[in-house]
């Protein structure tokens, strides 16, 4: 439990500097003023002075748009309605003031421009832009955010403290006998190994969780673009639950749930029957069917997806909900079979026959004798099938056809390629993560209790 708290706290701490990074500050040393179009029209002369330029950035993918283009357009059309229309046509989130740049001098804002501009995050282009407009002999530095200095200071302080401790203990050590020195040395080596390995694991975990923490942290801000912190807000959660999110997202959630349920139910039924059959087969037959069972598990999604795609093309099936469901049953069922089989080998094989001998029909014997023994395996197979189906991308991608059917995975893919995530995905996945975390903790505690008993 303690480690989960530690991880949560450390990943949120990691997100702090990222939040502070939502804008970048440049320090511009202005050269000769004559050709300075950047700061033209202001009463003061800035020659030789230093000003700060703060830029907020956002990602725009696949757009042949550079910052230079964007800013040039702003300069030409500032204040006009066409600016907004232009922004909207490029990117549907542009109606919010996400990106802009301001010029600061002596802690006072002196120029504020392009509040409605979306720019690529090509920093280099921006630097070029400023320099080309600031006149000759100007120079530009990117300023490091203060939070990085804090991090560096903490790191330095930690190292210094550790070094001091080592120095101090070495000096004390000299007063001890050689045997005591040896035991101390061993103890210290053990401790070092212990903390070293702990540190390694934690660093790995922090890196592993950093992107996830990013999603979770930014689910609490209204900003449409991941990475722009615009203040705490629960709006995205509200939108998600009141159906105000993107229509595509709503239907994707709906389809994901429906497909997962259909696939899980079908594969549980099919897989349980198959497991009973396989268990009662002779060795050779059993080996063959087991091999067949392992094929969809070994095959990567792309192969499963493509081969099914070819099948549907060859048979002339129109692809849609039905084909996606079939495809999901294909890769879910083997896992159900594998989770039911161990339950079968644990139960007494004679009870079923005994029930038949006592006059039960096979159906009755199945329902009243076998099912009570098998259901834990079936349940875990069902849950496994659900999660596999929800998580799948590759197979769905090739079997969904072109009729506009999207599951969450394919929706995210097309969304990301368009150049930005629908913001309501952030709260959705934060919730999923929390549910998973709670479920895993509960299962863990439950297992521990069972072991103790």
């Amino acid at each position, binding site marked *: 439990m303690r*480690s*989960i708290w530690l*991880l949560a706290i450390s990943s949120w701490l990691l997100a702090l500097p*990222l939040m502070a*990074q*939502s804008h970048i500050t440049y320090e511009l040393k202005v050269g000769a003023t004559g050709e300075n179009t950047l700061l033209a029209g202001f009463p003061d002369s800035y020659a030789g002075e230093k000003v700060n330029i703060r830029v907020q*950035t956002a*990602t725009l993918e*696949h757009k042949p748009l550079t910052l230079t283009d964007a800013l040039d357009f702003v300069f030409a059309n500032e204040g006009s309605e066409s600016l907004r229309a232009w922004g909207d046509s490029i990117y549907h989130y542009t109606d919010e003031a996400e990106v802009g740049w301001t010029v600061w001098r002596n802690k006072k804002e002196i120029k504020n421009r392009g509040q409605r501009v979306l720019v690529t995050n090509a920093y280099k282009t921006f630097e070029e832009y400023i320099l080309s407009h600031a006149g000759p002999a100007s120079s530009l530095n990117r300023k490091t955010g203060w939070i990085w200095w804090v991090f560096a200071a903490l790191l330095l302080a930690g190292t210094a403290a550790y070094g001091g401790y080592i120095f101090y203990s070495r000096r004390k050590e000299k007063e001890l006998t050689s045997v005591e020195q040896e035991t101390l040395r061993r103890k210290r080596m053990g401790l070092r190994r212990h903390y070293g*390995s702990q540190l*390694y*694991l934690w660093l*790995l*975990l922090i890196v*592993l*969780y950093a*992107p*996830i923490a*990013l*999603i979770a942290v930014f689910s609490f801000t209204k900003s449409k673009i991941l*990475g722009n912190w615009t203040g705490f807000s629960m709006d995205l959660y509200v939108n998600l639950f009141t159906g105000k999110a993107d229509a595509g997202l709503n239907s994707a959630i709906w389809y994901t749930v429906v497909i997962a349920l259909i696939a899980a139910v079908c594969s549980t039924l*099919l*897989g349980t*029957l*198959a*497991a009973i*059959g*396989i268990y*009662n*087969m002779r060795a050779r037959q059993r080996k063959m069917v087991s091999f067949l*069972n392992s*094929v969809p*598990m*070994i095959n990567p999604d*792309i*192969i499963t997806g*493509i*081969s*099914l795609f*070819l099948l549907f093309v*060859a048979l002339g099936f129109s692809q849609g909900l039905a084909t996606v469901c*079939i495809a999901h*049953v*294909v890769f879910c069922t083997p*896992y159900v079979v*594998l989770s039911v089989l161990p339950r079968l080998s644990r139960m007494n094989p004679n009870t079923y026959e005994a029930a*038949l001998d006592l006059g039960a029909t*096979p159906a009755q014997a199945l329902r009243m004798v076998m099912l009570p023994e098998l259901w834990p395996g079936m349940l875990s197979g069902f849950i496994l099938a659900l*999660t596999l189906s929800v998580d799948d*991308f*590759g197979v769905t991608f*090739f079997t969904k056809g072109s009729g506009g059917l999207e599951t969450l995975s394919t929706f*995210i*893919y097309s969304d*990301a*390629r368009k150049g930005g995530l629908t913001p309501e995905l952030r709260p959705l*996945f934060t919730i999923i993560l929390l549910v*998973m975390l709670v479920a*895993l903790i509960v299962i*863990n505690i439950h297992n521990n209790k069972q072991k103790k008993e």
Partner: protein
Amino acid sequence: MSKLLQIFSSRRTWAWPYVAFMAMFVVLPLVLVGVYAFTDIEGHFTLHNFAKFFSHSEAIQTFLYSLMIAVFNTAICLLIGYPAAYIMAQEDFKTPKVMAMLFILPMWINFLLRTVATVELFNMCGLPLGEGALLFGLCYDYLPFMIYPIYNTLQKMDNSLVEAAQDLGANRWVCFWKIIVPLSMPGVYSGIVMVFMPTVSTFAIAELLTHNNIKLFGSLIQDYITTTDLLNYGAVLSLVLLIIIGLTSFFGEHDAKEEGGGLV
């Protein structure tokens, strides 16, 4: 009627629907990949598609590049993952279960979303997207697949062997290389297979992580197979990938049997 009843009461037959289903939707599609690869668009037998592949330098290059990326990624995952699994499997490590859980938990988040988040992370830190980002993203996605099987084998390992080696005078280093590493090889093999196979066949991730600048073999297959006229050529590419997958799983077959598939 009684014969029919007898057939159904023999439980062996209960697997038949599943076998039929698998024959239809697993075996037949795989056969079809081969059939499409050897036919032209009108359905006549031809070897033209293969000839096209071997003279298509872009495809060959992409294929080799993907193989290289997959090998690199597997090596990085092994280098990072083995120590982690080793530390967790130590006897004096107090919370191995929670740790193992924490390493697996990120996999429950949709991998595309994680990839997009990785892209954003790179953007925010001002790091360029490209080959480095691709390797980071792949490693990030598949590291748990490496840690888990190795951890499993190491945990099941008989510790008395290590103690015996120590009693006989082996130092930690010798003990690690001569006892622990050979004993953990089954886990390493299955980890390699479980990381290599999805990496070599990956698509979608590469495009997101490199701003469409780097194309892997999976994406190439996707491009061809979804173009109606080039479907047969796409089948050839899939067949090539299928052969690689077959070889890899054959490599993993010998030692990884018990460990594979344990990760869910």
